[in-house]
Every structure is written in structure tokens, then in C-alpha cells.
């Protein structure tokens, strides 16, 4: 069931929130994807009971009444330590309040059921976690789910919950959304609340939802942002362009063909200095991540996940002047991009270069060489984070094949237009989530 269908059923009294949540908790307990880190049974049952009580009392339980959802392991959940996927924080003092996003979802009637696996401290595109294990892709458990919000993507793609929250610094929502065939939104800067979210690289950190339909995404967007998800704009009248240059290299041919078929004869825009943009994003991320963890690294570097500690240590050794140069370039880049896309409403680009790589050999082919998936799956998302433009990952509709996604990129504040355009693509059958083999979406 989608979030919208659950909310309608609960609000109308067709079903009880507690029943929905019990089924969900049972499904989560049977998780074989290494996606779930903590099941919050007691809290979930209490929240579901509160929703049912509100309905019984004639009060409005909220637009997401009884909808179960789960969050990446870096959102504060009152009474629990916020681990950010790290064993270092497993015994940290419990959070004294929920993250702001969780509070908003709770107010809308949604029920928090679990916390989810991620790359340690969100540093990676693979969700290979030394403490919790590697999260598997529901479409092929021998393959990665992507990361760093891999747990969030896996539980929604597997149909365990209709909504999950993740975070996206350089593509950590869009990459796993693409590899698991979901919708995943990276909003514009500071549009969704970051309060109570463990940071990674403050210059790029955003949070966003995963859903299996545009309608669910629009509903969650409205709840989290407090902004309307609708727009008067006719989606057919939106000015569309395709991103060219590096965005058409290292891309699965199916994805390129789909982009060209969705937007034939539209302008092919080439973002300026895209290689420099990705390098600057790398430098800023490494510097900010390294600076954030420098004290802990100095105390006990070996306590970190082997997959992240070397990267964080290297970042902690970068000179400040290099970081300043990267930030100065970013400001100049924003200006150039704003001028370039002045006449466009939606830009199309691939979300990942390829389908999910196998866990046994987590590498992908970039520029003729096999490189680690954990650092390079975000080759097409990282430059978009650098632009600070909102981006919505949408899944190509390709039943029976491994998922692939593309990014719909808009101007600042254009999330409703992106959702409208995505709904049009979904209506026309270009895009849409497909249930994994043996599951029902």
C-alpha cells in the first residue's frame, strides 16, 4: 500500500493504525536486507494508538494518519543515541528531542517504526557498514542498494514501509533511489529542517524522503516543508533541457535513450567547468567531514569504520587555503549556472552511471577504469549538489530489469514544478517504481 492509500484507509476508519503498524513491525523484523538497525516497536505502537484515539475522538489525525515510516540512523530520535552509522556513537547519550523532521511527520499522523542502515557518517555511496553489514538491494540481494541512505531506500523498495527519510550531501538520496527504483528528493538549501540531523559536510547536507510514488512524495514534501506541493504550471509547458557533456559520458545507454525519448529535440546544456565543480565538491566534503571528526580521529582513529576512517583522516589534513579556493569557485559557479539555466524549468540528467553493482565486486566502470562504487557512484549527483539546485530522482519504468533513475533538476524553489513534471512522466508511463521480484509494492 502507498502512504496515500494507508492514510485514506486509516482516516476513514476502514483500518486501524495499530494494525497497520503491527504488520509493518513484523515485516521489518523479517528484514533480510541489512537495512534496519533498530525497530522502535514500543514507540510505534504508542504513536499508532494515539492516531486511532484521535480518530475515535473526532479529531483530525493528520494527512499521514497511521502511515509507518523509518529514518536513516542520523536523525535524532528521543531517548536513543544518534549513531550516524558508527559504533563510536553506539553508547552516546540519548537524544533529548526528536529531529524537527520527525516532529513534523508525527504531527501529520505518521508513525516512526525503525532506524536504518547507512555508510558510517554518511561518507559513501554504497552502504557498506562495518558495524551493521552491507545493505542489500531488494531487486537483487547480491547487489548494493547504494548509499549512503541505502537502508532508507531498501525498506521502501522492499515495500516494508511506504516512506523513509534519508540525507543527501553529494547524492546519498538520489543514488540509492536510482539503484532501487524509487523517487528520492534532494530539496533546495534549508528548505527541509536539518535540526536534529547528524551533519556530514555542512555546505551540502540536506534531508529528503524516499517514496514509491509521486503522490506520496508530494504529500511528504508538503508535510515536511509546510509549503504547497501543487503548482499552477502546466507540466507540458515547462521548458525542458538535457544536460550534456560529462552527463552523457559514463552513462548506461538505456538511461540516455530514455532521457532523449522523454525530451526529444530539447536543448543540450553543458554546465561550465563540471570537472572542477566535482573536484571542488570532493575537496569541500573531505575538508568539512575531516574537520568535523578531527578530534575523534585524534582520540582513536581505529574506532572508525575502516571504509571511512582513511577518507576522514585524509580530509582532516587538507590545507584551509584549498578549501577556501573551492568555496570561492563554488560562488562563481552558482552565478554561471544561474545564467545558463535562466531559460529552463527542468533539466534532465542521469542519477547514476549504471545499475547497482554486485556486492562481491563493488566497483563500477568510469572512464575506462574500474573504480570503487563507494566513492564514484555519485559522479552525476555530486555536481548537482554543488549547484545547490533541487533535484528529484525518478525511476525509469522498466519491469523485469534492474532499476535505473534520472534526475529532474529545477531552479531554486521549484520543487512543486519538479513534482508536477514527475507526475506527468509517471502518468505517461515513462517512470514509476516497480516491485522487486517476489514482492508486492
Amino acid at each position: 500500500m502507498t502512504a496515500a492509500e494507508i492514510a485514506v484507509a486509516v482516516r476513514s476508519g476502514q483500518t486501524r493504525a495499530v494494525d497497520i503498524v503491527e504488520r509493518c513491525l513484523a515485516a521489518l523484523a523479517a528484514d533480510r536486507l541489512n537495512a534496519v538497525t533498530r525497530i522502535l516497536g514500543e514507540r510505534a505502537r504508542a504513536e499508532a494508538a494515539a492516531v486511532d484515539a484521535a480518530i475515535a475522538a473526532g479529531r483530525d489525525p493528520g494527512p499521514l494518519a497511521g502511515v509507518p515510516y523509518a529514518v536513516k540512523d542520523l536523525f535524532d530520535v528521543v531517548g536513543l543515541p544518534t549513531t550516524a552509522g558508527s559504533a563510536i556513537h553506539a553508547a552516546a547519550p540519548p537524544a533529548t528531542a526528536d529531529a524537527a523532521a520527525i516532529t513534523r511527520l508525527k504531527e501529520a499522523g505518521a508513525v516512526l517504526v525503525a532506524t536504518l542502515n547507512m555508510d558510517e557518517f554518511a561518507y559513501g555511496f554504497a552502504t557498506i557498514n562495518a558495524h551493521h553489514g552491507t545493505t542489500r538491494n531488494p531487486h537483487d540481494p547480491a547487489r548494493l542498494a547504494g548509499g549512503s541512505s541505502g537502508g532508507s531506500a531498501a525498506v521502501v523498495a522492499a515495500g516494508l514501509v511506504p516512506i523513509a527519510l534519508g540525507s543527501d550531501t553529494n547524492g546519498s538520496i538520489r543514488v540509492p533511489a536510482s539503484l532501487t527504483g524509487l523517487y528520492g528528493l534532494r530539496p533546495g538549501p534549508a528548505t527541509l529542517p536539518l535540526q536534529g540531523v547528524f551533519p556530514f559536510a555542512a555546505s551540502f547536507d540536506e534531508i529528503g524522503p524516499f517514496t514509491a510514488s509521486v503522490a506520496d512524495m508530494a504529500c511528504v514534501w508538503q508535510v515536511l516543508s509546510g509549503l504547497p506541493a501543487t503548482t499552477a504550471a502546466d507540466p507540458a509547458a515547462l521548458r525542458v533541457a538535457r544536460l550534456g557533456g560529462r552527463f552523457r559520458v559514463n552513462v548506461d545507454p538505456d538511461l540516455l535513450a530514455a532521457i532523449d525519448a522523454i525530451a526529444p529535440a530539447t536543448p543540450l546544456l553543458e554546465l561550465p567547468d563540471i570537472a572542477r565543480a566535482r573536484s571542488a565538491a570532493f575537496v569541500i566534503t573531505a575538508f568539512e567531514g575531516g574537520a568535523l571528526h578531527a578530534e575523534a580521529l585524534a582520540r582513536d582513529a581505529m574506532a572508525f569504520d575502516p571504509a571511512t576512517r582513511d577518507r576522514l583522516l585524509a580530509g582532516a589534513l587538507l590545507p584551509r587555503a584549498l578549501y577556501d579556493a573551492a568555496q570561492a569557485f563554488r560562488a562563481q559557479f552558482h552565478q554561471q549556472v544561474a545564467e545558463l539555466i535562466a531559460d529552463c524549468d527542468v533539466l534532465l540528467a542521469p542519477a547514476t552511471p549504471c545499475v547497482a553493482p554486485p556486492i562481491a565486486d563493488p566497483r563500477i566502470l568510469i572512464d575506462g577504469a574500474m573504480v570503487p562504487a563507494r566513492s564514484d557512484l555519485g559522479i552525476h549527483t555530486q555536481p548537482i549538489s554543488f549547484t545547490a539546485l533541487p533535484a528529484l530522482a525518478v525511476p525509469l519504468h522498466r519491469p523485469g530489469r534492474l532499476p535505473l533513475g534520472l534526475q529532474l533538476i529545477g531552479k531554486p524553489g521549484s520543487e512543486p514544478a519538479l513534482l508536477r513534471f514527475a507526475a506527468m512522466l509517471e502518468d505517461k508511463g515513462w517512470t514509476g517504481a516497480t516491485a522487486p521480484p517476489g514482492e508486492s509494492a
Partner: protein
Amino acid sequence: MRQPVKLPSVDPFLVWLIAIVAAASILPAQGRVAAWFGVATNLAITLLFFLHGAKLSRAAVLQGIGNWRLHALVLASTYGLFPLLGIAASALDARLIDPRLAAGVLFLTLLPSTVQSSIAFTALARGNVAGAVCSASLSNLLGIALTPLLVGMIMRTAGTGALASWGSVQTIALQLLVPFVGGHLLRPLIGGWVDRHKAILQPVDRSSILLVVYTAFSAAVVNGIWSKVTVAQLGVLLMLSAVILALVMMTNALVARLAGLPREDAIVLLFCGSKKSLVSGVPMAAALFAPATVGMVVLPLMIFHQLQLFTCAALAGRFDRAAALRDVPQGAEAAAAAAAARGIAIPEACMPGVVANLALLARHAETLHGGTRA
């Protein structure tokens, strides 16, 4: 962590110089007072050159002398290229620039390089500091004899009229040389004390220069300097200084490239080879020129001095930023040193991974900086 380099504000010493020039313009020393100031000035010059001699480290010169190609290029710039440009400037039409100011321009081109600021800017730009110490010191050591000699040869030949007779040049050269050599010979005895008390000696140095400038400008004001030097003339002087500095710097940059100097040495040539010493120039002018003309002669030097400080500080800052981009530590040793500076010990098991990640980040730094490398 390194702080971003900022352009300097106006040199505080320049503010003092301007104040002293203003004081001399409003209240010039005249008559018996001027005579007393003349005596005090002579004593100040002697003291200055005595201290110059005592401060100059022969060991520093000898230590870095092996890099002879670099020092030859720096000396060629200071005592070859600069004087040629000075001669060209002195040949400018008198309607464009007052011949006495042109003589001042020529004089400044014959001066030795600075020691302190050349070394400081080289260090800031991450150049070869040992090379800069040697080059600048050598330039000053030779300058004590070479500058008066060049002044005698070129300015007399150029017929600027500002210079005393050839015989007096020789006598005055001795007046500079004797205290300088005396101070330098006493360095084994007093050098350590001088080096330890630089903070105390700097005000002595600077107040001596201010005394010389006050005396020189008093005489110049009495002689009507401000009726001869207009704002337009100062503008021409500034332009001329900028042109000379630009030509010298461009030539040195080109020569460094043609000679295949490593980046660190090219920075030494750029900074040491383009500097002219105010602290040497002002007392030398006071010793070498007739009192009434000293003010006109040192005015171009004062303007050039500030211009070179601004330019070199901006360039050094730019080089510093460019070097920082290349400063991503490479290799286990550099990584360990950078980590130690941040209070981090890299575990042995992590070192290969850290080095590999630093190599990746260095490639990104190169890409980021692509096309704009200094």
C-alpha cells in the same frame, strides 16, 4: 591552519615619513638649528651603517653562496637591469619630469636590495628562504661599495647636477664604508647582541632615517621644493616607478623561466631582484648629495618603496594561495607530519589508505585549480 593572506594596509613607517616630510615643510630646520641637525644627521648615518654592518651575517652569505646562478641573476637585476632603466628614466624630457626627480629615480635604481622584506616576502610566497637571505645580504654587502661607485660613474656622466664632485664621492664612500666595515668586523663580538635585540634596534634604525629625512627636507623646503614638485609631478613619479617595477618583475619572471630556475628560486629572483632599500638609500643620499637636493633625490625612493611593498605583498599572497593548493600532503612522511601538526597520529594500518586518499584529493586540487595556477 594557515590564515588567508591579506593585502597590507599602508606601511606605518610610510605614515611616519609623510608626517616628517609635512613637519619639515611646515617647520623646516634653518640656520644654527639646521647646522645642529646636520651634525646629528652625520652621526645618525654613521650609526645606521655601523648597525647595517653589524647586522649583516657573513655566515648567511657563505652558507647560501653555492647557488651562484641565482645570486648572479639577482645581482644582475639589482646592479644591471635597474641602472639601465634608471638611465633611461633620467633621459626623459625635463618637461615631463623635473631633472632632480629624474636624478632621484636614477639614484634609487643604483641602490642595493632590501634584506628584511625580501626575505619576508620570499618566505610568505614559500620560496627559497635560505637563497633569499644570501642574495639580499650579498646585495647589501656589495652595495656598500658598488652603489657609491655607480653613483659616481653614472650620475656624474649623466650630468644630473645633483651630485657633489667625484672626489667627494670617494670621501663619502669612505664615510659609509668605515662604520659599515667597523660594525661588520665587530660582529663576532656584538652580532649576537644585535640579533637578539632587533626589536630595540629597529626604532633606532627608523628614528635615524626619520632624522635624515627631516634634515634633508628642511633643506629642500628652504630651497623651495614644493614650488617645484607639483601633484602632477608626483603622479608622473608614481607612473614611472610603476613602469620600472613592472619591467623589472616581468624581466625577472622571464629570465627565471628561460634559466629554468625552480619555482622556489624564481620567487627569490622576483622579490630580491626587484627591491630597493629605503634604509640604505636615505642615508646614502644624505651622504652623497648636496643638502638642498637630498629631499628631491629621496622622494622617488619613498614612493617606489611603498609601491614595491604593495606589489610584492599582493604577489606573495597569490603565490601562497597557489602553493597551498599544491600543499595536499603527499606520501607517508608528509601525511604523518601534517597529522602531527593537527595533533593526530595516523595509525600504521591506516597509512596506505590515507596516502591513497590524499593522492586522490591532490588530483582533485589540481583539477580545481586547473588553468589558473600561478
